[in-house]
């Protein structure tokens, strides 16, 4: 009886955790949020594993690359 109750509690926690992940509910145990796409078959190339962040868009901070012109700094943005 005790065993099945504790099993139920653990199961509830797992469901709750995955639910929070799926629905972007932010809490301390789920950050950073991971959206799980259950049905997707992964046929994605692995070449990205060796790609620089530059190849993934970090060759610029703005589409027009104005960071090199107006701000005379890559970021130069008060935050």
């Amino acid at each position, binding site marked *: 009886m005790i065993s099945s109750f*504790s099993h139920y*509690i*653990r199961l509830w*926690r*797992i469901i709750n*955790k995955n639910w929070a992940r799926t629905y972007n509910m932010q809490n301390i*145990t789920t950050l950073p949020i991971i959206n799980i796409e259950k049905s997707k078959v992964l046929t994605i190339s692995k070449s990205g594993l060796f790609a*620089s*962040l*530059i190849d993934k*868009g*970090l*060759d*610029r*901070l*703005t*589409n*027009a*690359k*104005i*960071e*090199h*012109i*107006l*701000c*005379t*700094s*890559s*970021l*130069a*943005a*008060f*935050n």
Partner: protein
Amino acid sequence: MLRDITIKTASEEIAVKTDDSLTLEEVLRTKRIPSNLFQGYAKMGEEVRPIPLNTLIFVIPFEEKIMLHCIRNIDLKDVLPQKTFYNKVENPVITIPEFNFGDDGCSQTIHELNPDSAKELVKGKVIDFVKKNSSFNTVIVGISGGGDSNTLAQGLKALTLENSNKRFIFFTIIFEPIWPTFAADRASELCLTHGLTHHVYRNEEIEKLLEMKESLSNFYKEYSEKFGNNTSHFFGTYLISIVARKLCQEYHTNEYILGFNREDLLSDLLFSLMNGQKPLAFPVRKFGSIKLLMPLWDISKVILDACYPKYSFSNYQERKEDQSTYQRNIIYYLAHSIEDIYPNLGLSLMKGIEKIFSNQWSELRQEDNLDIFPSEYADSMKLEEVKSFLKKYF
């Protein structure tokens, strides 16, 4: 439910009890250990099977023993704190860890800071920096009204008390939605408290000061149309820079100060380096004959914000859903992460970069008497477009 896990390195075996709703990776993260330094295993009798670290502990059968094995022969006692000392203060707002190393292993001192001790720390650094790097009697200082740039005021005030010839002219820009009115109010309040000269510039004053041909609102509207709504941060920084440089002319000085902090500059450096580009000079950057001084360059934002927690809190709450580029979001996140992985890792990189590029920083050249100083990496076509756009307004 708690579960036993063995963390094994070449030199030791650590038994930990952990909540089974965590993944193995999350267990390592709570102990400041990078997950790419460990492989997970589930062991039953003599049989051992490798398991990925994103496995939830709960799903590993209870009969199996869980082991996290270090994949390098690193003695973690040398790397992670084995002893902790506390540098305590009353009513702390933040804590900053400092790691120390030696034959007895790694130890850490947790420095607690309250607003008073944070201000004292920053004040001392600002004073030292300005004494070393500033030669003009009058210096223009741009403050935004956030916790960090306001911290400048106290240190600079102390300098004026030491040297009666030294004068700091503070200014804040109000330009909704980038620079809101309440931020300027906070800056005014602070400067008033310290008896510092402070000017607030709204649209009309900016247009007059910069002798603009058209309104600032139109300038921003067209800028947003041309370069995108998600580039407002860049517009804001450009605006505060040109106002500061114009004030330098008005007050016959060649020096201005802005509150770039450690992570601001680290982000900047990371972006330049990953792109194979020479970084821009810091903590003193020249725009022609005018020098931008960055006295907060090695101070973490978290320390600066701790100086005025109430101002900082208001500042965070005023932030709207940011329309920033994803690149800017990533690069700031990376800068803060580097500092978090290991205390002062970011600062150490900054100092190394400063050493490599000393006197070889990326050059900034003024274009057509306009107040723009593009870097050598500016696209020439885009530069012409920006120049003709600016000529319409200045």
